[in-house]
């Protein structure tokens, strides 16, 4: 069962990421020529930079990937067109973080901002430039692409600011873009929807921190995907690129924190502050000292996953019900990370989140179901508690008593009716609550005892030994114990009912009562009632033991201490 769980999750995750990753295999059927080979550079402000006839053989050879910040360049790139007919609509596409003017065979063709010799004279242009070139311009033979390029608007040293320059036919770009856009967009939309959904759950339904944290998690991961795909929709100024990368890192960091915080609150792990501050310190260290932005994101993602996995393992060892499914998702995520190529890390992360969100929705629905059952159970308990005093045995015998006393001793009848009314009133006010003050429970027990004394006409004693009375208890559980004693045992003169309450971190109530029923079956409706009430208020953190001890019946009830609010 458990292995199936893991397998199914893994396969689903694999399929979804595969679907997302499909865009890698776009065939570049048409025309593609990478430019840059044999480039020569001059750092001087060469007036004749774009002159076709200039002899640049003295200029140093230059690898374009070495273009650096805060510099001015004159770059001359020889281009050899070997094909006789280059397809129509072939364009020059250039992506780098810098301003430049482009010349083809000495003729100005386009500008990407305005290059300059310093910060003031340089004007920032878009990050990407596309220029259509005519068939004449792309005739077979030798051509020359020259660029005046400057990079003064950088705010920090990047390791790579040149991404590429190509001649390509237009169609590739279009096909390429559609597939890459649609799936991340859908994912981002789903994430924002989930963020709104869980925020609504938090504000309108249940103010559990895990919900609002998960809402943030969805929002951050949606934003992350959004920041990733923004490049397809907006050819932003190249100096914004670095800002964008910084926002992405911040977002990655927030997402990681939210993921860990979510699991901490979801499983109610102790010492959350320590976990979170440790994580935050590690994240900041990774963000500051990792060599490149890609490695920064990746390392933060991986660390966030490792810590989440750790938390889930802790939760699994504590038998938290839904830890297994989360654990499966995370492990599957790890395996996928190894299998999938590095460049899909952001999409993979998004896919992972959608699965965590699904698991989350699943446990939420389970919770809804449980709450519905609980609500119905509370109603049932309430009814059961009230009905107990309407049991024929109790009610009809009491009425017979009243009839007898009305005829023989009317004053006694009045007192007895008063006692019955008091017990009913107490039961009625207590039945709607899950926990009642001890003093109410005590009053109920004493009242019931009084009624039974009237009924059985015996000299019996109820001793209640309690040091502090400021705690809460599920309604009518001690009352039920006492009631059971009367309905299952012959009561004799001199019988003593002892209730001893001790209180430290938890409550321990010991009830010692007479025991004369040799064929006592043990559990009954009364015991069920007590156990259900204890479960309703304390989940599994209680114990109930009930057994014969010598000639008495001893009942031990333990549950956590909850102080009565002042």
């Amino acid at each position, binding site marked *: 069962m458990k292995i199936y769980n893991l397998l199914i999750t893994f396969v689903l995750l694999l399929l979804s990421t595969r679907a997302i990753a499909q865009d890698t295999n776009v065939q570049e059927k048409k025309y593609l020529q990478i430019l840059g080979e044999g480039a020569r550079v001059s750092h001087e402000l060469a007036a004749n930079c774009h002159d076709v006839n200039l002899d640049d053989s003295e200029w140093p050879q230059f690898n374009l990937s070495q273009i650096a910040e805060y510099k001015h360049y004159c770059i001359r790139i020889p281009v050899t067109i070997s094909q006789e007919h280059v397809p129509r609509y072939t364009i020059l596409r250039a992506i780098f973080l810098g301003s430049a003017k482009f010349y083809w065979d000495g003729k100005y063709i386009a500008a990407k901002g305005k290059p300059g010799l310093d910060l003031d004279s340089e004007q920032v242009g878009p990050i990407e430039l596309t220029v259509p070139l005519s068939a004449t311009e792309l005739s077979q033979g030798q051509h020359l692409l020259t660029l005046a390029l400057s990079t003064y608007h950088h705010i920090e040293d990047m390791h790579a600011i040149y991404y590429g320059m190509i001649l390509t036919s237009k169609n590739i770009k279009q096909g390429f873009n559609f597939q890459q856009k649609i799936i991340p967009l859908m994912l981002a939309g789903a994430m924002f929807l989930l963020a709104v959904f869980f925020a609504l759950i938090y504000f309108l339904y249940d103010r559990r921190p895990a919900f609002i944290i998960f809402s943030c998690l969805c929002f951050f991961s949606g934003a992350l995907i959004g920041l990733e795909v923004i490049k397809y929709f907006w050819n932003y100024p190249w100096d914004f690129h670095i800002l964008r990368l910084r926002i992405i890192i911040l977002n990655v960091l927030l997402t990681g924190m939210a993921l860990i915080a979510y699991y901490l609150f979801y499983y109610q792990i102790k010492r959350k502050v320590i976990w979170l501050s440790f994580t935050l310190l590690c994240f900041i260290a990774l963000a500051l000292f990792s060599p490149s932005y890609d490695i920064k994101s990746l390392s933060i993602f991986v660390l966030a996953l490792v810590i989440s996995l750790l938390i889930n393992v802790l939760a699994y060892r504590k038998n938290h019900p839904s830890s297994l499914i989360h654990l499966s998702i995370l492990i599957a995520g790890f395996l996928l990370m190894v299998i999938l190529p590095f460049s899909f890390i952001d999409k993979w992360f998004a896919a992972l989140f959608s699965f965590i969100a699904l698991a989350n929705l699943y446990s939420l629905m389970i919770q809804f179901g449980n709450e519905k059952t609980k609500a119905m159970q509370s109603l049932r308990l309430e009814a059961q508690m009230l009905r107990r005093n309407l049991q024929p045995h109790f009610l009809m*015998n009491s009425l017979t008593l009243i009839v007898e006393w009305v005829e023989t001793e009317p004053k006694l009848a009045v007192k007895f009716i008063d006692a019955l009314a008091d017990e009913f009133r107490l039961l009625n006010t207590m039945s709607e609550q899950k926990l009642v003050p001890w003093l109410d429970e005590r009053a109920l027990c004493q009242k019931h005892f009084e009624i039974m004394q009237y009924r059985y006409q015996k000299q019996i004693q109820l001793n209640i030994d309690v040091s502090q009375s400021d705690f809460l208890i599920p309604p009518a559980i001690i009352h039920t114990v006492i009631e059971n004693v009367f309905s299952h045992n*012959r009561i004799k003169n001199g019988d003593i009912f002892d209730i001893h309450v001790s209180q430290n971190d938890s409550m321990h109530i010991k009830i010692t009562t007479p025991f004369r029923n040799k064929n006592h079956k043990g559990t009954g409706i009364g015991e069920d009632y007590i156990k259900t009430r204890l479960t309703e208020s304390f989940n599994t953190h209680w114990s109930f033991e009930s057994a014969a001890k010598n000639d008495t019946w001893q009942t031990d009830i333990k549950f956590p201490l909850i102080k009565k609010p002042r």
Partner: protein
Amino acid sequence: MHIVIVEDEPIIAQRLKRQIGEILEAEKPIIKWFDDIEDANEYLTQQSIDLLMLDLNLHGENGFDLLKDVSAQSFHTIIVSAYSEQAITAFEFGVLDFVAKPFQKERLQAALTRFTDKSSHASNELKQLAVKKHDGLSFIKIADINFIKADSHYTQLHMNTCDFALHDKPIDKLAMLLPEQFVRVHRSYIVDINKVIELKIGSGASYQLLMQDNNEVPVSRSRYQQIKSLLS
């Protein structure tokens, strides 16, 4: 007249004792009270009594257990209980009446009248009778009974299927529990008058009833006229 009350609440027992004493004043009854089934059982096996007033819930124990335990039910039982839904079961155990709590003197009087008036028939619609077998209780439908024959302290219930079961009440006591169609035709016989095929006159002025199961039941001379008029 010897009456036993089994009731675990003293005030209710006191009420029963007082009211029975008043109603049966002329009979000068001896009334004994037990608040526990075990004690009552012990007493009943040693003493023969006339009437048992029985509560059904005694410290969580079932009053019917007493009826199962007591060997020959030579006495009549009146149930006094809060559980009126148990009435049907009670009649199946062959009790004379079921008085629901809380009860008034008038109701108790009606029940006791049925006990004192030997000719009375059960007013209720008794559907079946409990019969003790070696493996517990089994129930016999009244409609299945053809005739009843006295068998020392017991009675034989003869059924349509030609076999019979032993009931542990003497025929006089049982007669009081049965519906009206059961007619005493002989000192030792009761028949369901609806299941008689014909009245035969034998030699020597003896009379027999031919029943549906082909058995013949003797009719006493003193009752002949009455039976004849019932059948015509």
